[in-house]
């Protein structure tokens, strides 16, 4: 991965411990100017903790944090040049929208006309002009979140921090605001760090995604790379819905490498091994995403084919998920919604092992 010359945010060897419990472990992360980074992971992985450390709301145990080349490790949140949007919006309930937006500026003692100018701009960008005199309790969830974004906007800062900003909204509003945040980023070109556990938000918004688990960044890369070439089994399983199929078996080395499991042998000559090819008999996990599995006539053209029978059919509307067995494991694939399949129907499936992922069983790392 290319080094970032002038990172907007740079985190160096950051650790955070609560007593003996280590929450973040020697984390390093460079974020380029104007980049949209998503911290993605299951709850408890440390992603929000990391964001709070960047904001200065939590004291770190070790390491340094730079924002715009300035060491802000010991700075107060207000002096770090950040704006933050919270999951629960965190609007001050007793103040009007306008007062909410201007609170930070008034605390900083900015002149009145400057405050007015900034609020007008933020209100225009977020289209909340009609709401300025209302109290937060009189706003809908989507409107509240816009005001919360506006509060970060008026601070006129370099870095925006979003802490699961859309989690409290219903599905429809969430997708609307997702688009708006993306447009906002395009318009402002600020650095944005966005924490979420929602992989769709991550995939759609991010320039790069940092997948986290147990206080460690597992993989930091562009969304497509993470999706197609997950570095370990955790990342592979965490991203993608429906989830990737996993078959446990072992490696048959030699010139014609293959993966075998429970009567299935998958040729791996088209598979791009990462670095070590592994030795014969090595236990490993073969993973393939449901949408990369072909079915029926299309399967015949694939380098690997197998015969099986339909076990369960789950219509999803846009397409249908079919469950069968492969290598003794439950195995799912997608077919068009029009296909009518019934339990017990014999079927032929196939896929290209080049699109698959192979993981070492003990370490879970990609082979």
């Amino acid at each position, binding site marked *: 991965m290319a080094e970032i010359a002038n990172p907007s945010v740079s985190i160096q060897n950051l650790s955070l411990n609560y007593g003996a419990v280590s929450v973040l472990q020697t984390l390093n992360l460079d974020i380029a100017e104007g980049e949209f980074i998503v911290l993605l992971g299951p709850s408890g992985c440390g992603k929000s903790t990391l964001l709070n450390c960047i904001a200065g709301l939590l004291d770190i145990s070790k390491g340094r944090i730079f924002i715009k080349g300035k060491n802000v490790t*010991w700075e107060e949140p207000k002096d770090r040049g950040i704006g933050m949007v919270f999951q629960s919006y965190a609007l001050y309930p007793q103040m009007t929208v306008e007062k909410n937006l201007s609170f930070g500026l008034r605390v900083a003692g900015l002149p009145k006309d400057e405050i007015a100018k900034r609020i007008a701009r933020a209100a225009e960008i977020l289209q909340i002009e009609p709401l300025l005199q209302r109290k937060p309790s009189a706003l809908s969830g989507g409107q509240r979140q816009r005001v919360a974004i506006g509060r970060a906007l008026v601070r006129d800062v370099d870095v925006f921090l979003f802490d699961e900003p859309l989690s409290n909204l219903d599905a429809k509003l969430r997708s609307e605001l997702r688009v708006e945040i993306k447009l906002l980023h395009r318009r402002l070109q600020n650095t944005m760090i966005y924490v979420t556990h929602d992989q769709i938000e991550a995939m759609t918004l991010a320039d790069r995604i940092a997948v986290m688990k147990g206080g460690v960044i597992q993989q930091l890369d562009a969304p497509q790379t993470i999706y197609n070439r997950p570095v370990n089994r955790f990342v592979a399983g965490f991203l993608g819905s429906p989830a990737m199929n996993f078959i446990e078996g072992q490696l048959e080395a030699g010139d014609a490498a293959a993966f075998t499991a429970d009567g299935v042998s998958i040729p791996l000559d088209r598979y791009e091994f990462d670095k070590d090819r592994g030795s014969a008999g090595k236990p490993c996990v073969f993973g393939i995403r449901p949408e990369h599995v072909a079915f029926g006539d299309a399967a015949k053209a694939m380098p690997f084919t197998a015969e099986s029978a339909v076990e369960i059919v789950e219509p999803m509307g846009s397409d249908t998920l079919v469950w069968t067995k492969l290598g003794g494991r439950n195995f799912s694939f997608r077919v068009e919604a029009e296909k009518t399949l019934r339990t017990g129907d014999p079927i032929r499936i196939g896929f290209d092992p080049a699109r698959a992922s192979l993981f070492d069983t003990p370490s879970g790392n990609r082979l």
Partner: protein
Amino acid sequence: MSKSERPSRLFRNLNAKVASIPMILTALVVFVGGTAWTVLYSFTNSKLLPRLNFVGLDQYYRLWATPRWLISIENLLIYGVISLVFSLVIGFILAALLDQKIRFEDTFRTIFLYPFALSFIVTGLVWQWLLNPDFGIQGVIRKLGWTSFAFDPLYNSSIVIYGISIAALWQGTGLIMCLMLAGLRGIDEDIWKAARVDGIPMWKTYLFIIIPMMRPVFITTLVIIASGIVKVYDLVVAQTSGGPGIASEVPAKYVYDYMFFAQNLGQGFAASTMMLLSVMIVIVPWAYLEFGGRKRV
């Protein structure tokens, strides 16, 4: 490198520390310091003024040889058992009755609780008047023709502490009822539905399901009642001033009288240390159960 200085540990959160000075002073100087001071001086023979003239456990030997102290302790035990049992039982029954989705619930609750707003002095004086043998309940019933009727707890040494307990229950059961009611309201509505579907009679549901579920409420209530019992003072002063004779003396009054009237500080300190000890016997196991078992979040 960084320009910003890492502030020294002492000055981080400085405002919060400055703001906490009253709390820290109270905790250390008054609560810890004051208690330690009293315990220390209870081993001295201080009379009018506190003096560090140690006499070992003399004050305690004398204390436990003083009839007035023994009566105080006996009274406290009787008063304590009555308060605990009756306020728990009455408080729970009233709460259970109020919990039957009755009409005028607020009115009833207001009536049961209003005595709690009154001071012990007011409570004591009212009940002194009600229990006045000439004009009070006894007098009224005698005037009705039952001339041998006797109900004069405040003037009868052997039952005076029960007379005081009546007033205490009148004042305090409302609070217990409120706590119990809050506990009952905290119980999942579905438990009642399940018991009804299973055909369990109401009293059995209370006895075997609801009360065990309310264990934490009972424990908290118990601690509140218990710590109130030890402090009982104003009520006795108002109702009987410890009389007739010394029949209704209580430890708190013993302490006060020895410190400020008898000019025998050492006795007062020893007696108050005994009070502290008895409270600790209740509080320490409770605090251990409440805070010791689980980690603070």
